[in-house]
């Protein structure tokens, strides 16, 4: 266990229901790093947030010894390089490149496409669901023969893909469309069970009931018909 000096100060500006914020909490917890969490109201951003992330004005922002780091994937790599216990990224350059590729795939392809489901009905919605499933199929294939994307233990891609396990799949309940049915995605479902068997994950994901309530309320605000 790494020694921590008194001057080491770790603060996370985040938001309890954000997958990008939660993934940072997972990484810090996995590494045994103590941190102070500061809940941001994203509808009324604090002056601290605006000061620490002037470029995007978004959470999460990690502040370590007074220095801010933004963008969740950048923060994750920073955490991995700073606290060396329980490595998140592989050492091998090729494996690392693959991990980075899949992380971007989740954030830039799956997330962006899946978000389009919100507010759509009928044929339009079906088309987005189909497109999301096509993308998820790549993840499905990646998991064959593995407990986690990282292999036998949780890694970078698993942490990033919690977005799929605990956000996309939770939204299904409310939007009333099974985007990730178990018959089409048995590996993903198996992987989610593996995630839920991990203490750090269980501790760091938003509590299900509250989370579902939050998603429902947000959908209603966006005037989305729920199932």
């Amino acid at each position: 266990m790494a020694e921590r000096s008194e001057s080491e100060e770790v603060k996370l500006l985040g938001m309890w229901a954000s997958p990008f914020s939660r993934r940072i909490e997972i990484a810090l917890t996995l590494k045994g790093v103590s941190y102070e969490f500061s809940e941001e109201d994203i509808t009324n951003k604090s002056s601290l947030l605006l000061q620490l992330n002037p470029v995007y004005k978004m959470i999460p922002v990690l502040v370590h010894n007074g220095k801010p780091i933004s963008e969740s994937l950048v923060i994750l790599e920073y955490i991995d390089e700073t606290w060396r216990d329980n490595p998140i990224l592989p050492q091998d350059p090729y494996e690392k490149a693959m991990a980075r590729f899949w992380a971007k795939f989740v954030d830039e392809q799956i997330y962006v496409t899946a978000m389009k489901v919100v507010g759509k009905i009928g044929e339009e919605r079906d088309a987005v669901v189909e497109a999301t499933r096509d993308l998820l199929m790549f993840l499905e294939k990646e998991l064959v023969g593995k407990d986690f994307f990282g292999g036998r233990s949780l890694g970078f891609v698993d942490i990033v893909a919690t977005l799929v396990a605990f956000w996309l799949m939770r939204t299904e309940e409310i939007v009333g469309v099974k985007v990730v049915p178990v018959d089409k995605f048995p590996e993903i479902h198996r992987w989610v069970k593996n995630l839920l068997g991990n203490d750090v994950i269980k501790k760091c994901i938003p509590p299900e009931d509250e989370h579902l309530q939050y998603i429902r309320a947000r959908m209603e605000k966006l005037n989305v018909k729920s199932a």
Partner: protein
Amino acid sequence: MANLPILLDYWPSMFGMRARVALREKGVEFEYREEDFSNKSDLLLQSNHIHKKIPVLIHNGKPVCESLNVVQYVDEAWPEKNPFFPSDPYGRAQARFWADFVDKKFTDAQFKIWGKNGEEQEAGKKEFIEAVKILETELGDKPYFGGDSFGYVDISLITFSSWFQAYEKFGNFSIESESPKLIAWAKRCMEKESVFKSLPDSEKIVAYAAEYRKNNL
């Protein structure tokens, strides 16, 4: 004898250029293969079956896709010469942040300038200038984004400079008047062999963009 790394690329692509610069910075000999997008090679389709895009670097038979991944991979696979990142994690995080900024804010904006017209083009111009000003502030008085040495952020951005003339011509504005420091930085980078050998002539890019506009707008 080991096979040379293969770079699947496309001559006007600023993303492909990043890979070229990275490999040359490390003094790595590689086989450059030009892809024809109307007829993508089997190798490209197999190596990047998800996105089917260039650049793809194939090293020891294994493909690395996406330009910034390729640049980081090159840095890690050939660590002895010209490191692209500082050694401290905070400096590395800052470099990753800014290269990601280039991808997020610069890419779409610059395309709208040469690839669109009317309102979309104007919007692109505005976004581009905003992004350029932010980058110029980040550069400050440093010779390179990396500080004293040419690094990751420099590689991620310099390749767009081959397109500056096209942006100015089709967007009808002067980048230098918006951002003199950035132009000075670009000139400095262009003195490096890895850069001038990897970037095509601006004139050729202007002609390429003109052809695109003729066929698409």
